[in-house]
């Protein structure tokens, strides 16, 4: 299968990426703006999320309501999110609607009205969402893990901190949008049934005259403590633990990802087999790889009844310790098969592809074809992964538990 990938950079720094998937009926677009939570600033955790919400509340000639109604009227399945690194606005639609949808997104991004009378409703929405996450124990455990493991501000919760969101004013939102919603650092990805030259022409009309500003990266601060228990009156104790891994831009991230997939990536993985299948300790258990641009983490998660949580943690730690030196080629072959199959199936979704090409560009500053990606998987071997594990054995673990009782964490894994 010959992949049709495109990329170009506008004069103001916007990176425009595309993938033509002519077998699809749909097209998807994703705008990733360098306005993620990492730029919130001390004491203003949640500013990026509040600002992103405000951008939807009236733009150009459209009122708040007209923004949503014009997107939905065009049949656009729209989504908006703020992550650590980006504020993102995305949409998937029947391909012929793309031309009508782009000017709406241009208004949201370049001409948000940021009206003062929408600040309180937007703030209330952010605060309600925050309250909702308080009721999601798995989310809280994972959020606490990121906060402890990554140096500030990279681990701060993008959704915000209630007391800090409550104190934000309209001037801070307007200033944030002016400083952070800028062409340099913006990635726009389009995938599906697209006409690339036409997309470039339309994007140049809509975004070409957007004046650029300098992009200042945030300074990294200190990390949190390694072990934390969060009291929560729940039947299950949630366990989230992690240790440092190479970021995606480092070639060794493939070795790290494969090792983690063997540990806890599929139903034949070691954690699933030992924790769930053999012992029936839990319903959910997994290991995976989480990456930011300059930091990354191996992440393991499980949730088990209070009385069985300690055994669950102990078995997880035993499997983590056992990993170096014990990999089998059959395990690696299964990991490769799953990864390759997932890569090919991703081509059936325009939204998934638009997200994927943008993500890779953010990390690599380049596009990477499916063929290159498959080739990199082919080059993975038990020896290459073992060599990497020998140099980087799991160590310095951060461990979060959330539930009724704290867990005992052995000293050796904290070193």
């Amino acid at each position, binding site marked *: 299968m010959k992949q049709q990938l495109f990329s170009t950079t506008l004069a103001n720094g916007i990176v425009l990426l595309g993938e033509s998937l002519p077998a699809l*009926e749909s097209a998807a677009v994703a705008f990733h703006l360098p306005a993620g939570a990492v730029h919130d600033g001390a004491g203003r955790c949640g500013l990026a999320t509040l600002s992103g919400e405000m951008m939807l509340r009236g733009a150009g000639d459209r009122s708040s309501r007209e923004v949503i109604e014009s997107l939905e009227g065009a049949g656009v399945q729209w989504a908006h999110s703020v992550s650590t690194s980006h504020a993102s606005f995305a949409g998937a639609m029947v391909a012929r609607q793309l031309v009508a949808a782009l000017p709406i997104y241009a208004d949201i991004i370049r001409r948000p009205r940021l009206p003062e009378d929408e600040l309180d409703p937007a703030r209330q929405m952010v605060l309600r969402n925050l309250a909702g996450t308080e009721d999601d124990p798995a989310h809280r455990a994972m959020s606490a893990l990121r906060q402890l493991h990554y140096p500030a501000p990279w681990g701060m919760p993008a959704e915000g901190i209630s007391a800090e969101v409550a104190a934000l004013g309209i001037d801070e939102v307007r200033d944030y949008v002016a400083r952070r919603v800028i062409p340099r650092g913006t990635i726009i990805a389009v995938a599906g049934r697209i006409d690339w030259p036409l997309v470039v022409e339309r994007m140049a009309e809509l975004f070409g005259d957007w004046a650029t500003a300098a992009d200042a990266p945030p300074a990294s601060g200190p990390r949190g403590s390694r072990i934390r228990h969060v009291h929560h009156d729940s039947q299950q104790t949630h366990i989230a633990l992690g240790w440092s891994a190479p970021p995606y831009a480092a070639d060794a991230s493939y070795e790290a990802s494969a090792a983690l997939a063997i540990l806890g990536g599929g139903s034949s993985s070691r954690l699933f087999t030992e924790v769930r299948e053999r012992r029936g300790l839990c319903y959910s258990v997994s290991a995976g790889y989480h990456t930011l641009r300059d930091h990354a983490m191996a992440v393991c998660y499980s949730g088990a*009844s209070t009385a069985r949580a300690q055994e669950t943690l102990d078995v997880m730690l035993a499997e983590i310790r056992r990993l170096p030196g014990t990999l089998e080629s059959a395990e690696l072959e*299964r990991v490769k098969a799953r990864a390759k199959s997932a890569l090919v199936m991703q081509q059936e979704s325009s939204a998934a592809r638009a997200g994927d090409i943008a993500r890779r560009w953010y990390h690599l500053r380049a596009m990477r074809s499916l063929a290159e990606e498959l080739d990199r998987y082919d080059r993975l071997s038990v020896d290459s992964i073992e060599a990497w594990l020998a140099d980087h054995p799991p160590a310095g673990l951060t461990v979060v538990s959330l539930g009724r009782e704290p867990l005992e964490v052995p000293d050796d894994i904290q070193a």
Partner: protein
Amino acid sequence: MTFRHERLPNGLEIVAEVTDDALSTSVGFFVKTGARDETDATWGVSHFLEHMVFKGTTELSADEINRRFDWMGASANAFTSEEDTVYHAAVLPAQQHEATALLAAMMRPALRAEDFATEKLVILEEIRMYDDQPPFGADERCRAAFFAEHPLGRSVLGTVESIESLPVEAMREYHVRRYAPGNIVLAATGAVDFTALVETARRYCGEWEALPPSARDTWRAGRGPTGDVRETIVRPAATLAYGVRMSAGPAGDDPERFAAKLLATVLGDDSGSRLYWALVDPGTAEQASCHHQDFRDAGLFATQLACEAGDAPALLDEVTGIYAEAARSGITAAELEQARNKLAGRVVLVGERPRRRLFSVGLEWARSGRYRSVADDLAIVEGLSLDDLHRVMDSWPLHGPAATVLAGPSAIPETSGAGDPQGAGGAEPV
């Protein structure tokens, strides 16, 4: 896209929506059994059995099943609902036979007592996991209240007590009866080699013994509560309150069900709906949504609300007020157009992913023995009019009698019901 259908002599049905240039193939066994086919003594057995199917056959261990799925790069899983138990795998086309053969073998599990004992622990963990999460059981309690004594009101997972007391013999008996070939549909979508699919099915399922069809219950006797039913669940650890409200709606065999889904989109879609603008956009509620859910012979409108505990009673009244106002003043042409475009967009996006289409094709065939293409679905959406929506609101007033359950951090004060007690209650079935 072409549709194919075949039936083996033992009653197993095979259906496929074939898209030659698709990149993947999805296959699934759709067993027509679920929570509504259980009794008090077997409550939770359908879902527990779904787990046990992955624990192996007389020839295959659980580890081997897991390894084989991962080996073929399959995205494989299963789910159980009130009416269906579905085992599915998405693979690259070259793995069609492997995936189908493995799923077919799994349909005849060993159901070993020692695996049963270990997996029982996993089921109990799953029950606790969901019980710790929003809406803290409010959805299940509400369905139980809506359907009163009918088995459609059973929670799919069962309870800690029902699972702990379930013997393996009861599961074995249930399996023989409910997993008879005449009660199963093998469905496939994407790049399907249909001839090869039928050949695989003959080889691995052809010997399954045909049994006379086992009867299923019917729900025709009633259609939801005749008056308002309200219950409260107290969860001191909860931050927000979660409300679920269910009122009667068109059933899965009622032609009005499509209009009901469009109506729910206008009134309570996650964004851009009347509930969204009234409650979510102003930041009053964390969630306020409505959707239409249908079963073989029953249907309901389910409203979900998440908000500050103190606001919950007033906001539930506001929701029923919005429904009453819609019934009184009608839906606008602009609302209809927006909702139609939204649904059409969703149909197209789902339609191009074989792994999503599998569920549309398989579940519809299991329920009705009919096939609807993406084009058929689009034509239905395009053909819906304001009259259709207004007729549904007349026949099935969303502000009418309903079961409502609120779960929250403290006892939530009762309010006077906002519904019209003369609404849908006690009316004749359609």
